[in-house]
């Protein structure tokens, strides 16, 4: 379980995350939707301290960190028990697909090379890249790179995986293959927080949807509640703007 309480993040005077409270139970998938620039990435990045929040509490199971007092060890604990899938993939460009997946296992989890390679291979098979293991990122398509990114996250076996717009940098024809891999991970019972603009996907896999605007959670509920009967005016406007034919789909 991951729990965020009263989280604030400012960049100088710019208040980007304002008093966010969010709980994700084990095995749940939470989707965060909202206009760009609303602070969704910043919220995710605060969870593993890629950005340092100003105040709030982050708890992973019974490990609780007051962010104002977070020590190096606390930060490493949060980072080692969460994994991030980035919009721009962020693979190590001088390592092959399998080496990218092995890196965290060997360096951080101290697994021996052999074991790590076996594990990495398993996860690459899992995301459909059994024939691309020894390719370097630049030899892979965007969709394939992102699947390596997801395999890397899965292999670390974290308590929660954070996805920051995992398909936004992809050509449209590659979005499907990446969503399929995320969908499979959700079915396996992985705990995930996903920021995404893929509304029909979000609607399909999320247990709960959070509508985020100007740094705050404006509305939260099941996909049915948020997409069919949004209570908040801002949510309605946003959904109208992304203009999805909800009533015809599925």
């Amino acid at each position, binding site marked *: 379980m991951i729990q965020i309480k009263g989280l604030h993040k400012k960049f100088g005077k710019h208040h980007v995350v304002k008093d966010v409270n969010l709980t994700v139970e084990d095995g749940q998938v939470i989707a965060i939707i909202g206009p760009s620039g609303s602070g969704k990435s910043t919220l995710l990045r605060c969870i593993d301290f890629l950005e340092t929040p100003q105040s709030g509490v982050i708890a992973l199971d019974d490990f609780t960190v007051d962010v104002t007092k977070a020590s190096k060890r606390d930060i490493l604990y949060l980072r080692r028990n969460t994994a991030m899938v*980035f919009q721009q993939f962020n*693979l190590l460009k001088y390592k*092959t697909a399998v080496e990218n997946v092995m890196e*965290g296992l060997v360096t951080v989890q101290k697994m021996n090379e052999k074991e790590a390679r076996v594990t990495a291979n398993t996860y690459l098979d899992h995301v459909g890249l059994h024939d691309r293991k020894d390719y370097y990122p630049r030899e892979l398509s965007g969709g394939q790179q992102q699947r390596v990114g997801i395999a890397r996250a899965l292999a670390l076996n974290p308590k929660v995986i954070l996805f920051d717009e995992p398909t936004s940098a992809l050509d449209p024809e590659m979005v499907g293959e990446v969503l399929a891999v995320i969908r499979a991970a959700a079915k396996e019972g992985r705990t995930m927080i996903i920021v995404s603009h893929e509304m029909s996907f979000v609607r399909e896999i999320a247990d709960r949807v959070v509508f985020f605007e100007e740094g705050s959670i404006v509305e939260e509920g099941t996909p049915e509640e948020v997409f069919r009967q949004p209570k908040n005016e801002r949510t309605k406007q946003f959904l109208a703007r992304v203009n999805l034919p909800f009533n015809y789909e599925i």
Partner: protein
Amino acid sequence: MPKLFDFELVFSQIPEILRYLPITLEIAFISMILSLLIGLATALIKIKQIPVLRRISAFYVSFMRGTPIIVQLYLTFYAVPMVLQYINYYYGTNYNTNSIPPILFVLLTFALNEGAYNSESIRAAIQSVDRGGIEAGHAMGMTTFQTLRRIILPEALIVALPTLGNSLIGLIKGTSLAFVCSVVEMTAAGKLLASRNFRFFEMYVSLAIIYWVVTIVLERLMAHWEKRLKVNERRLPVDDPNQRLAQEIR
């Protein structure tokens, strides 16, 4: 007419001079390694903007680049024994200033001098490393040192290698100044040998040939190493015609 130029001697004396090549190479390689450590430290101080050290290292780089190496050699040669004498005087120690092997002055000066130049190329190389990869390292819970060792330095090495290779070649040629500290390396030995028969010109021709060949060999080695490190940048996946085509078009 007397023999103005003894062509045969140029080659016949080469084996004799070559006995001193190890000293030349030793000075060059040891001070190169030290200079890489100094350069890395200086580069990190500058990148991390560490308060007081930043000033000191800027002063150091400026001094090393603003004064001739021969002057620096003399300064070390006289300054180190003087400092030792002061230490002896004030702390009642009993270091023998004459027992310092002269080669240490040479190594120290070359390392400091080359370190100042290398710090700039190392800094540029480190700053060229892809932010995304570093961020991925942090996100998986690597410590600062692990990110440096596993992600930043391997990538920076590839970028800095050509420049560092040139600096090693410059260093090998620079070692001929070691005579200032009364170290007999190849050039100094050559001069001594030539004073037997006063065939100085032949000696300098022999020396020129040796330095030139050593430089060419090193250049080749560097180019080979660089190619190996960069292998993924030009490797064509043999089992995938589409990828190969894509690379050919590119």
